[in-house]
């Protein structure tokens, strides 16, 4: 981990500690808890996209597997939530290996296609296997988590818990990218041939990072299930996977902090849009939540066309360009 990342983490921890004291409203705390789930998934996805140079259009499916495994094992089999979370991680490891190994052996973007298909299969399974998943009506009464007998039964507690997991996720990601393995990953992103010529097993690394990013998603899904205590297939459509990729791209996929910020911003966007709705109504435009998808799509398109390295890099460049103009 580099100095400025450590400093960033410390500032983040201090900021997070203060949040529940500033925001008394449980609704907004809830929004931030959902943001934490997305953040965790996006940190993993950023390792895959920004560092291993591969795109997954199916990370929502790994979130779903995490959520459903936790939900099913705790409700129908009465497992402890922690054990179920661990089992989900193992299952996702296996599933990611099955999806990743054959596709990542090939050069090119086969992973994107395979994961896209995979995401639709998982969504269909969640809807169709009614005995297991409850089908469209979902799974009820998923228990809450508790830590050493201390139940995470308030939004404030769950806020601290979920963001603590995000901080750990960031810490792990920073360690990784500044390590021998992380250098190997950044190297293969720079030039696969050069990396291979130095002995980096590029296929193995891509597979490992893909699995690791799936595990981030799985943990995020389990935490989601234990927070809402109810899951149905609704939030786990393919669109969710695309949204996750958008979050990473908005913040800038070559930086963990970028993905982090993108995830927070886009998680809060529906709230901002619902504020905007009131104003839009005043000027005679009826904005419906259905349009959110349009907004996300537009954002992704604009980012990819004009700011492929994310808004922050774009801002940075704009500021530098501005300074130069002033100097002249």
């Amino acid at each position, binding site marked *: 981990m580099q100095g400025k990342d450590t400093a960033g983490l410390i500032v983040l921890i201090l900021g997070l500690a203060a949040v529940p004291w500033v925001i008394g409203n449980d609704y907004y705390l809830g929004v931030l808890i959902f943001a934490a789930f997305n953040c965790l998934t996006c940190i993993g996805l950023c390792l895959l996209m920004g560092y291993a140079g591969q795109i997954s259009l199916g990370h929502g499916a790994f979130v779903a597997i995490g959520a459903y495994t936790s939900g099913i094992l705790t409700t129908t089999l009465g497992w402890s939530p922690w054990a179920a979370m661990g089992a989900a991680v193992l299952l996702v490891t296996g599933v990611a290996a099955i999806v990743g190994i054959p596709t990542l052996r090939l050069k090119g973007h086969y992973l994107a296609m395979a994961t896209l298909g995979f995401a639709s299969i998982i969504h269909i399974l969640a809807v169709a296997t009614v005995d297991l998943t409850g089908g469209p009506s979902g799974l009820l009464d998923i228990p809450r988590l508790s830590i050493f007998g201390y139940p995470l039964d308030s939004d404030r507690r769950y806020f601290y818990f979920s963001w603590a997991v995000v901080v750990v996720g960031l810490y792990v990601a920073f360690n990784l990218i500044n390590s*021998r*393995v992380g250098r190997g990953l*950044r190297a293969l992103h720079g030039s696969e041939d050069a990396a291979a010529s*130095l002995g980096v097993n*590029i296929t193995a690394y891509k597979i490992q990072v893909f699995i690791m990013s799936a595990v981030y998603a799985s943990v995020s899904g389990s935490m989601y299930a234990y927070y809402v205590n109810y899951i149905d297939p609704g939030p786990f459509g393919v669109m969710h996977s695309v949204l996750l990729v958008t979050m990473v791209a908005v913040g800038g996929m070559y930086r963990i902090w970028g993905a982090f910020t993108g995830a927070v911003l886009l998680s809060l966007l529906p709230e901002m849009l619902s504020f905007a709705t009131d104003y839009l109504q005043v000027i005679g435009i009826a904005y419906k939540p259905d349009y959110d998808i349009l907004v996300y799509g537009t954002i992704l398109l604009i980012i990819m066309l004009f700011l492929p390295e994310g808004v922050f890099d774009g801002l940075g460049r704009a500021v530098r360009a501005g300074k130069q103009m002033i100097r002249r």
Partner: protein
Amino acid sequence: MLEKKAEHILWLENIRKVFGGVVAVDDLTIGVEKGSVTSVIGPNGAGKTTVFNLITGFLSPSSGRIVYSGRALNRLRPHRIASLGIARTFQNVRLFPQMTVLENVMVGRHLRSAAGIFFSSALPPAWRREEARIRQEAMDWLEFVGLTGHARAIAGNLPLGSQRMLEIARALAIEPHLILLDEPAAGLNSRETIAMGELIEKIRQQRMTVVLVEHDMELVMDISDRVLVINFGRLIGDGTPEAVQDDPDVIAAYLGE
């Protein structure tokens, strides 16, 4: 006919490589003696880079066999071949442009370090002694090529001459027994070319075997123990720099017959 000898660290036997209809390498048999500087010359499109790609596993031969230190290389993937001690550079420099100069060389220490994904994620680099060692060794190789002052620069921002030096430092960092250099002096000015010659001499003194593909004849004639000439994928000349220079076949090939 050539014969494989014990002094040969690398031996290519009846190697053929066909791309669609193009025969890039045609029944090539060559041996490289341990500890030598062997140059491979030939006109554009003669098949020199293809030979390097075959040796390092980026391509596999249509037929024939490649033996390195008594071991057949056929069908091994590039990273495995690197782990056997063969390093290379690329004709169009392939750095990791976003990484620093030092980090580029640190990647070269990959095979000489061990941390896996689990330990790498769990502990910060400052707690892992291996990281400090990798950094120090990479610095040593930067010093070897004279780039110490640029350690923290972004690799992609270096001028071409330094980029080529860096690529060699990175390849040397794997501590190879055999290093393949594909046109290391291409695009360099005369001062840089002289420095490159001195560097190759220094590499030889490290008891590494060097195979050099180069168009700069002065450099080739200056530092080579042996020169192999290929044209249309076939070996047309083989000998000391002096002998090759006077070979009528070689002269004909270069003057376009």
